[in-house]
């Protein structure tokens, strides 16, 4: 289902449907649950579904680029932190020494994490960096 501005804010309109990574819903994440050791950081992680819902809302209120960012974000939810930081590093100027390095990262995003939008985004960067000579060595 597609969310609209009428669903916003999700935490107020449908708190029970807002869950963390392990399915624990907002109302269940209480201080007592934390003290009982029932809440981990993973329970406090946003889900791809919530990001998609926010993307729907953003699109509904006329913010298509914001929606796309949420959708790229949704694809990165499952990507491990280290790999995210590795790809970020690779995207910085002069880190990748060739287009292929970036294309490799794009392929991993696509194949391992089903991050299609992110993969295309990295490919676009690779193409741009090649055109603008960004694969040069920086001392």
């Amino acid at each position: 289902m597609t969310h609209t501005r009428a669903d916003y804010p999700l935490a107020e309109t449908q708190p029970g449907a807002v869950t963390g990574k392990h399915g624990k819903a907002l109302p269940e994440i209480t201080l007592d649950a934390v003290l009982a050791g029932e809440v981990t950081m993973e329970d406090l992680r946003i889900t791809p579904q919530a990001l998609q819902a926010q993307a729907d809302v953003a699109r509904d209120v006329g913010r298509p680029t914001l929606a796309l960012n949420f959708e790229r974000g949704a694809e990165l939810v499952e990507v491990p932190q280290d790999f995210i930081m590795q790809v970020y590093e690779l995207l910085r100027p002069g880190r990748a020494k060739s287009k292929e390095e970036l294309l490799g990262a794009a392929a991993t995003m696509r194949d391992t994490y089903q991050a299609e939008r992110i993969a295309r985004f990295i490919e676009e960067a690779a193409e741009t960096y090649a055109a603008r000579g960004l694969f040069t060595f920086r001392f």
Partner: protein
Amino acid sequence: MVPKLNRWKRFADWDERPLRLDKFAAEDPANGFSAFSSPADPKPGIGITGGRVVSLDGVLEHDYDMIDRFIARHHIDPEVAPEAMALDSATVARWLVDMNVPRETLVRLAHGMTPAKLAEVVAQLNALEIAFAYSKMRARKTPGNQAHVTNAKDDPLQLAADAATAVAFGFDEIETTMRVSRNAWSNAVACAVGGAVGRWGTLFQCSSEEAEELRIAMAGFTSYAETVSVYGTEKSFTDGDDTPWSKAFLAAAYASRGVKMRCTSGAGSELLMGFHEAKSLLYLEARCLCLQRGMGVQGTQNGGIDGAPLTATIPGGVRELMAENLIAVWLDLECASGNDARSTESEIRVGAKILPYLIAGSDLICSGMGSILKYDNSFNPSLINGEELEDYLVLQRDFEADGGLTPLPESRAIELRERAVEAIAAVFEELGLSSPTEDMKTSVVYASGSDDTRSLMPRDVSFISEAIKERGITVIDVVKALANRGFREEAENLLNVVKLRLSGDYLQTSAMIRNGRIVSAVNDPNDYLGPGSGYRVSEERRLQLNDIRDVLDQKEVLRSEALHEKDEARHIRYRNLGPAANGSAKEDVVIGISPAFGLKLYRTTAGHRLSEVLGAMLNAIRARGLKARVVRFRHTADTSFLGLSAARLAGSGIGIGIQAKGTAVIHQRDRQPHNNLELFSNAPITRLEHYRALGANAAAYALGEMPEPIVVPQRGEAMGSRYHARVALIYAIETGLTEAGAAPEEVDITLTGAKS
């Protein structure tokens, strides 16, 4: 002989003003010193073929640099562009200030506009029009504000106390950074805990190295990021060690962790970095802002930022800062509108800089305001700092404008600071990080800045910080520690902030938390369509804004007078002798006192006892061998009429009129009421010696002499601002006792001479 000088001394006076510490730069477009336009700026233009942007502001696709390419692919909406770019810029400029043209119409058009077009449109507006258009175009209706919370020692106790104070002042966001970068984790925990004291919902960021900042956010301590910088030229961008794609990737990464984020850009950064391409500041900034919309970030920290001081040296620079903020909100971005760097040493320029934002409102008026003292600000001093924060509170009250802050009573501030210091100390103890002593804690609670503290030093903090990082301590551990040590409310508050990231509601444009609820451009959109619409200060909010400290009212004035009543009773006795007679002797000088003089009011505004003032005048008159009488008038409280009435009763034709607040006049029978002999209008600086001289001069006039008029020297004190509220209240007490036609009363004065 008076020597001739080689300069007008006024210039020497001006040399001493703080303003002269500011340096000003000549307009020089070729070297990048141009605010609004440069010969190197391109003319607006776009080419679209088959839904693809094939030329942008005169650059063909083949020649696009990274920024052109990103804007062409991700910002420009090819459906809207032909229509938007064909519009006459002057017409669009008029629409921006036309309250009948809705915001949404203009936002849609911006999706199809190139940087040169956006810049060309806003450049047509004068400063007032820019402020008005900003007020109409900003995304969220309710204005907000952000604070810097840092200190020179990275002392976590002080960070917690200052964070709690900032939260209580009403800041919607607090931002910290470190003197020593490895102290980031300690700063993060300290501000997260301090920010959870008193209420929940203040968003918090810890500005540090990109990767570290994201890790700290992942551990749950921070709730947003904003130092993701973008630049308007390719060379600046790569020197900043990023590209539009790396930054956009980072934006998606923040979204994937449920952490709010905005970018940063501002005029002058390219100029500072040496790659300005001879373009105007506004054009380069328009590129930055189109980039940011294209990246899909919800907002921007914009308006000079670190480049604001440089921008302010250029003609029109301050107007340019406003113009770039207008482009930001026109592009539908949340705008944390700068006003953070101290762009001048002149307090007048500071006040002038902030005013348009205060009255127009902004998502975050400052990004941020120094809630701490200037020397404690690890970002560098802000436009407005802890020293001047009260001035800002008063500006809110003056203009009935909501600048996002609420006055904080001193006792409440102390209470919150104690609580915050105890809370962070408890967390550190519970987690085995540090055991702050009672002296440390106490020194912080009452400290205005880190010069006053005897607390943790940067090296101590590094051990704490590295332990937090290495042990993988998360916000869950801190929440538990708080609750286990009795800080249950703070634990709940902190948990609530972390829970925000589950729904992602606060990732939407211009989101903040008010009273435990999300307020963003989605559910609180700016709906300005003229007077009566858009954000209005409610009566409840107006009363909050008004509630600054030390406000005078009549009760307060009477209370302070009552304190003096007993004291005066020991110095003087007034005895009413009945109706005053006309004097006939040439030696007769009359002192006319006002209705409340010595009856309800006991001191002049300069603080002199009325008994001493009367004594000084009486003695001076008698010293010349004349006779002085005191007469109370009740038909008037006006100085001139008191004096004239006294003169008419006096055998010498000379009278003195004096009000309880100390304002006095020497008058002469047969003169017009307001054409007196001498007037002593500045009571707050009139000393006893002046009253003595006044008496002596009155005597001299009575003896037919022509004395030198008494000059009460003043040094340009803003007498009105210091005293008029009190004077008006006092004078109302005087006029309240007047009675039409009441006859003058002879008063016998006994000075008992008691010494205090």
